[in-house]
């Protein structure tokens, strides 16, 4: 599978327009074609894995933008992750990759602590690593919103990496261990339905597990995106909000293109939060680019920063001074440089929580 995608993509340029890293670095080498050609050339003995080629290998963001625009659905991100695994095993990955892996393997989290969860309920909320460790206020707001609609949830995966990060960095075994731990926690909570807070985790459960880790999501447990769930409650009138007002630009989160079914619902939440539709970025919906909230923040921080700054520049051009997003990881990265662009970052769930009424 991975060899096929590398061979198919090495001379294909058809996703160039949608590929985020090539766009911000202006460099052929770090486009999907460039990375695939490097990998194919190593296979042919024209290159070896040395610091410069490994740097290129680690430039791919694993956000699915190439695949989302591929008519023949080449699984290049997975193929690259598989090659990273081989490079890691050889001890040839950048030191920062091993450092973050050590932490992931030890704590189960890339960003802080992983807490054990003990509650049980019909509905569980998968909190995830970024929300708990980087934007705890976001989690508090989500609880408030769920309380407002009288949905009792058992929080699970508090501070937990689903395995996406380890897999993306090139450690599939660690990823598998983390994935199985997450599933075990879900089972232990006795939930029939799992609400997932972050798009990255939704992607992991839905696609990464079966496609890269050979793990299937339990068929008897319903997997539901939190934003989509809240938008449905809003439409039904179960989630009742005071009229919102404001002018803000919505930024589709990292991995947005992997969950296109969220584009509409999340904007319905924005409409409610602002009392009007949000302003839109140029890089939106199916062409949404990520910020640096991927493995790039560890392997290629220069690219992670360039991606985040590009989104902020795009946002500045829309004319609004506030940026709205629901994804904790995306919010965290935007926050780092937002003031340099005269922008304020607001969490969508936080904004909605302030509008809840009994």
């Amino acid at each position: 599978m991975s060899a096929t995608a590398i061979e198919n993509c090495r001379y294909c340029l058809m996703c160039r327009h949608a590929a985020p890293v090539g766009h911000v670095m202006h460099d052929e080498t770090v486009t999907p074609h460039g990375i695939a050609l490097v990998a194919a050339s190593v296979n042919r003995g024209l290159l070896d894995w040395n610091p410069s080629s490994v740097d290129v290998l680690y430039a791919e963001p694993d956000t699915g933008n190439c695949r989302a625009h591929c008519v023949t659905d080449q699984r290049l991100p997975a193929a690259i992750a598989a090659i990273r695994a081989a490079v890691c095993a050889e001890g040839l990955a950048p030191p920062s990759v091993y450092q973050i892996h050590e932490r992931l393997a030890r704590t189960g989290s890339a960003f802080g602590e992983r807490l054990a969860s003990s509650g049980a309920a019909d509905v569980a909320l998968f909190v995830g690593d970024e929300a708990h460790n980087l934007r705890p206020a976001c989690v508090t707001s989500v609880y408030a919103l769920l309380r407002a609609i009288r949905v009792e949830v058992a929080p699970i995966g508090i501070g937990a990496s689903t395995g996406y990060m380890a897999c993306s960095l090139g450690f599939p075994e660690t990823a598998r261990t983390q994935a199985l731990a997450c599933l075990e926690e879900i089972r232990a909570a006795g939930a029939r339905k799992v609400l997932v807070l972050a798009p990255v985790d939704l992607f992991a459960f839905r696609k990464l597990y079966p496609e890269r880790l050979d793990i299937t999501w339990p068929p008897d447990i319903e997997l539901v995106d939190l934003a989509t769930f809240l938008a449905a409650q809003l439409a039904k009138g179960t989630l009742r909000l005071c009229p919102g007002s404001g002018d803000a630009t919505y930024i589709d989160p990292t991995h947005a293109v992997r969950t296109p079914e969220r584009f509409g619902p999340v904007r319905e939440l924005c409409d409610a939060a602002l009392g009007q539709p949000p302003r839109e970025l140029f890089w939106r919906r199916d062409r949404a680019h990520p910020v640096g909230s991927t493995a790039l923040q560890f392997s290629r921080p220069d690219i992670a920063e360039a991606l985040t700054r590009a989104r902020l520049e795009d946002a500045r051009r829309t004319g609004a001074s506030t940026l709205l997003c629901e994804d904790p990881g995306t919010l965290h990265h935007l926050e780092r440089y937002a003031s340099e662009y005269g922008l304020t970052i607001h969490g969508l769930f936080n904004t909605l929580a302030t509008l809840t009424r009994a």
Partner: protein
Amino acid sequence: MVGLQAEMIRSELEEVVGTPNLSTDDTARLVYATDWFWLPQMWLDRGEKPRKPDYIVRPGNAEEVSAILQIANTYRIPVIPWGGGSGSQGGALSIYGGIILDTKRMNRIIEIDEKSLTVTAQAGINGAQLEWALNDKGLMLPHYPASANCATLGGYLSPRGTGTISTKYGKAEDLVLSMQVVLPDGHIMRTPVVPQHAAGPDFYRLFLGAEGTLGVITEATMQLDYLPEARLLRAVLFENLADAIEAGRQIMTRRLDPFVIRLYDPRSTASRVKKILGYELEGAYMVIGFDGDKDLAALQEQKAMEIILRFGAKDLGREPGESWWNHRYDFYYPPQSLKLPWMYGTTETVTTYDKIEKLYYAEKRAVEEGFKDRDIDFIGHFSHWFHWGVMVYTRFIIKNPPEDAQEAVRLHNRVWNTAMTAVLENGGMVNEHHGVGLKLSRYMRRQYGDAWPLLERIKKALDPNRIMNPGKVGF
């Protein structure tokens, strides 16, 4: 390049573009060692070492381009402009090493003028991204090449590209109002604000088709159109190619203004139309489309259909036409596309209506008979129609080429010589829209005959040190 001189050049380039915008490592040099030309791709595919560029620079504006060209003149090293690297003619190959000047950092839209319907953008902007920005305003740049996803504006203009809807809207070059160009000596110039005037000769066209041999295009102002209210497409099937070409000619010369006429020869109808669209048909398959105001487009379509039906063609209805439009680029995605280790080449050409059929059959016969032992496949479609003639997009495919890379180069060149000889002997141009590049460079003298020395003199005057893209376009 090694030693002190290499380091001096490197540090001077770095001063101009900054460290992040200069690459000299082996990995980047390998990636920039091939564009979309079959030969270098095959070469790498067989594990052969390519000739790599020495430096890759990514300038952000015309001033930086100018400084780079001045450094190249000082050290007498080649500069090869690189847009998306999607050119199929080897135009962006660094066959003598030197500096690859990647234009992709020059990707800003400078102005969209909604009154005059123009856009001014830097030359390195990606075609699809430019189109998205225009579509957001209800506008389009009516140059729709299959490579819009990967090509740049400069790459559209430099090899005189043609897009799917050129039959109505013209080639990329017909859409240019003005350009900013950096000449080989680093001089930055801008052509007059409009192309149609009587204030002297039309010299701005020199840079259209020069493929980086006469300078670097850094900015262009392009004519736009409104996104059409309607696009009416349908497919028809002719019993034979001759009738289909004649029907197309009548539609064009009566100025019925189709935005597309895509006519597949019987061999393509049986292979590509079947493979991509799933229709099993015998004959010559044509997709024809009219766009713009719904009523006008419908009337034009009705008039065109009267001509088509007079030739006994079968109307296949809208669905196959629309399906073709929606899937017209699918063919380029692997594994549907042409793929190595196959050998292939697009020998497209253009000539007037009185010669086109004879030319097509002459080329077909020469290639098919000349390489029968190789089981060569020769297919074609007629896709860019003019008032005076039509382009035929012919292609050869050999599915079992020699494994040895040197052998493969020899065979490839022999096929090309055969095809181009037939083209030139039958009044065709060696190319209509992919450009000359390295691939067709050696035919330029034959193509131009007594006009060639003029081009040579211009080249010598503008680029005395021959730094700009040597080995291409006959220079």
